[in-house]
């Protein structure tokens, strides 16, 4: 079985890699397997973890005992029926005449996400970032090194200029336009660095696959 598993994994890996040569039936077969299997994977995982694990076990708790034999069964939570009802309404989208009712669970999802993100992003990705940008120039105890001072100035100038670039309600001309231009330079440096890291990430994944092919499968790596 282990031999079969290795060969199957190698067959599928090489099938996807064959796309580099050109689009071909081997690749298409692997792609179709991937699509079907992914859908099946999440179908099962979400059933057991969310629908069974959250709803069913929440409404009908399993009898549980600790190592001392004391019962630790949780209290049933019948409010979870509301969640299940919203979920069923979501599936109504597949029924043409009553598909509109799926807007209710959709509204719930959108409302939850909006409420949660409003606070989380406002606090962590905005206020804390502003706080992190405007720092004492020479350090809180006048102990910052020259490297840190220059760095902090670069961060403050770059962030401000970058934000000016994203402000489109005023025409980018004069001093404002010049600042926006500086912002573009910082953004370009950022994209370049991100590109470098993306190369690193993709190469790492490729190394992982090569390690499988040459190591686990063919046993060529010591």
């Amino acid at each position, binding site marked *: 079985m282990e031999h079969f598993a290795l060969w199957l994994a190698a067959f599928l890996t090489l099938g996807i890699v064959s796309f580099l040569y050109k689009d071909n039936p081997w690749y298409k077969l692997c792609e179709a397997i991937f699509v079907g299997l992914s*859908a099946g994977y999440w179908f099962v995982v979400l059933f057991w973890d969310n629908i069974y694990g959250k709803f069913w076990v929440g409404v009908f708790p399993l009898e549980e005992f600790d190592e001392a034999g004391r019962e630790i069964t949780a209290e049933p939570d019948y409010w979870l029926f509301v969640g299940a009802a919203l979920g069923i309404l979501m599936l109504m989208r597949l029924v043409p005449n009553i598909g509109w009712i799926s807007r209710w669970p959709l*509204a719930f*999802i959108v409302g939850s996400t909006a409420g949660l*993100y409003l606070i989380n992003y406002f606090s962590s990705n905005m206020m804390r970032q502003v706080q*992190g940008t405007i720092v004492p120039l020479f350090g809180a105890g006048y102990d910052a090194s020259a490297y840190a001072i220059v760095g902090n100035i670069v961060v403050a100038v770059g962030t401000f200029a970058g934000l000016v670039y994203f402000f489109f309600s005023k025409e980018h001309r004069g001093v404002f336009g010049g600042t926006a231009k500086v912002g573009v330079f910082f953004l*370009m440096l950022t994209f370049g660095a991100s590109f470098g890291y993306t190369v690193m990430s993709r190469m790492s994944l490729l190394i992982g696959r090569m390690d499988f092919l040459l190591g686990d499968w063919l046993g060529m790596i010591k």
Partner: protein
Amino acid sequence: MRREIPLLITGIVGIVFVLQYFIPHFPFNRMNAWFSDWFSIVAAFAIWLGALNLMKISFQKVFRRKSDWGYAVVIIMSFLLMAVVGFAEGKGFRDQGTAFDWLFQFVYTPLSATMFAILAFFVASASYRAFRARNFEATLLLLAAFLVMLGRVPTGDVLTGFMPEGMRLSAVASWIMNFPQTAGQRAIMIGIALGLVSTSLRIILGIERSHLGGGD
């Protein structure tokens, strides 16, 4: 009815999530727990909807004998295989040694990992064919990529070994990542946060309604 109730649901749920941040006590903590559980359940059904839709489209492709319908059969078979095995295994479906785990380890993982891995080839090809220093901005982008790529691997320091430690490529890459790169990322992050906050407010207050689609 078709628009008012969804708007009401969005507004109430959104406001509760905002309030529970400031008042993490009863009843908001309880409502937060309910809503987060409901969210998980509804999200699961939403993914189910996507999977079932995929099946619907694939079956239509097969019955109407559209081009490449054979691959639609493979999609259906793979889906059914994973689903049947997963349901048959019971709640311990993920345990090591189960058929579901076997399919995951030896079929799903190689496919998904290789899908992402082959992007390495396309990134390299694009570097050769399209990554050009056409103007000052593009040169800055190229330079940053160049320095970071070399500075983040040991070869960078080998190439600049003759220079003082703080001037070597690893130090330069670190400086770029920690300062100018951080500044740019932060500007983007704050910009996104501002957009998210304003859009969220519009949604909660019922001003933004595009997510509800057209019609009444």
